[in-house]
């Protein structure tokens, strides 16, 4: 069958289910991305799971969000005063 690009991409990482619209499917990530705001929870979970090595081809963690946490707190304080 002639496939869409999306179907070709999903088929490369599909590990559970069939590519039937609306059906639950499971894909395995080749790569992951995390950052300093939402990533804290991710790494706490990995710690709780006692993971000693990530199971991906590449995982990258970025520091770009909470870099300015102090400013964020000031911002929220301004908000509550407004």
């Amino acid at each position, binding site marked *: 069958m*002639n*496939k*869409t*690009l*999306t*179907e070709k*991409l*999903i088929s*490369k*990482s599909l590990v*559970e289910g069939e*590519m039937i619209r*609306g*059906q*639950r*499917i*499971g*894909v*395995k*990530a*080749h*790569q*992951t*991305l*995390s*950052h300093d705001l*939402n990533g*804290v*929870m*991710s790494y*706490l*979970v*990995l*710690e*709780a*799971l*006692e*993971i*000693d*090595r*990530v*199971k*991906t*081809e590449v995982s*990258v*963690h*970025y*520091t*770009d969000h*909470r*870099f*300015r*946490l102090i*400013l*964020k*707190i000031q911002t*929220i304080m*301004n*908000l509550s005063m*407004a």
Partner: protein
Amino acid sequence: MTSKIGVYASNKGSGICHQLHLEHWGIPGKTLIGGDSHTVAAGGIGMFSIGVGGFDGAMTMAGEPFYFKMPEIINVKLTGKLNPFVSAKNIILEVLRRISTKGGVGKVLEYSGHGVKTLNVAERSTITNMGQETGATTSVFPSDENTKKWMKAYKREKDWVPMSADDGAVYDGVIEIDLSELEPLIALPSQPDKVVPVKEVAGRKIDQVMMGSCTNTSLHDLLSIANILDGRHTNKDVDAGLYPSTRTVIRESIARGAYDKIIASGVRVFEPVCGGCNGCGFAPKTNGVSLRTTPRNFKGRSGTATDQVYLVAPETAAASTVTGVITDPRDFKISDYNYEMPEEFIFDSNLFISPSDNPDEVVITKGPNIRPLPEVQPLSDNVSGEILLKLDDNITTDHICPAGALYLPIRSNIPEMSKHAFKVVDENFAERANKSDGGILVAGVNYGQGSSREQAAILPRYLGVKTVIAKDFARLHLANMVNWGLLPLTFINDEDYENLDQEDLLSIDATELVEGKKYTVFNKSKNIKFEVTSPLCQKDLAAVKAGGTINVVKNKLKAEKIDNFK
């Protein structure tokens, strides 16, 4: 921790994650799962990319599958070529104008057509990034010669593979856009789909301009901004700022004199972080009108509750910076410039820290407000306890786990944070929960609405709450309850809610949790019975019984380790 478990970490100041990933890691054909909604930016390089929450992010790093419903696939056919001063941002604004912020739900937006060939990877990524605002699962562009050129410029040509749809592929819908007919567009406050032509609102006075963000600061964008600001000054009533995307983009702009032109015009330049886009700095003044090249303009996101944020392309932002009013950049009567992507971008070897070769020697240190997650015990066969709280309808995750300046820093410290659970509803909740040795919460409709924050499920469970009986639950929160082993139950007859009072002692037999099964709840205090059921599927019920998905995966990984050892 990244170093110990094999994760590459960006150096502070390297740049914004989505653009950095596109520059240095993205590979066509691969699947990327990221703990940020704009992870979908990677669709621009031909990746299948999905944004998830912190818990699911961890699961995928642990090698577990990410589950979702197979989406419908919508073909967005691009024809023609963009006119001068009408950049790629206007394409995604046009998509939003047509299908709204709900139009993409359960769908993938798949771009094709001759128009695609006129767009470089960064332009495509502006479109896939902001495609998130349509609610789409993700957006994808094919991988072609332009993709190859991009990867070659970052010395990654060997990872390039071509990817595209087969001729005659079957789609669930088609959207056709002629690029040559597009004009500068603008999203009005405070939804990204309230899109009209810039000329319709031209002349409106503005207070602030924010250029940059993950959506709109490729080198192309910066050079275009510099071209407009060259030799001009920011309007005296406008506070203009630029958040560049990556160090490479900054260095390339400096090498071409573009950075100097932007700074000389009076624009404030920030470091390459998410900053102003998610309200961490550069908040507009009270009632301030802010023109932004970011992907979102939800009320208050800028950090000011009364903000009026408009979303535009970089050219419209730059032109308006000079005039002080919303301005169609085509009215500026300056010559367009032609962007040619460099054959090779400046190579920077200090952007990432590689994981350690000797992970056993890496010692993890944590600040006082990051504590290990508590262990959750499997659910007992008999779930009994007093009703610790009888809650109204629409209890939000903010009620459960308070937000705000006082609480943000301790959010990753569950024992400390638990002291504040439900504080806005009942000052003494945590204290009573601690004393009661397991309790039950009763609520009306839509329990757990609001954010996807995990803590809203962890906190009650940590305090010994085993189940929440509600009229119904918010969908996102249900997933978190499963992850952390908190049993959701719904009334068979909603009227039974009226017969319950705080401090009533309830008892439920939870020995066998079966999908669709009715459970009898015995109210010992009033000597009455009523029936409940759970909205969860069998797999999720099994997870709750085990003390949450976290325990299921933990047990599975342990079993695998033992197998490997044998």
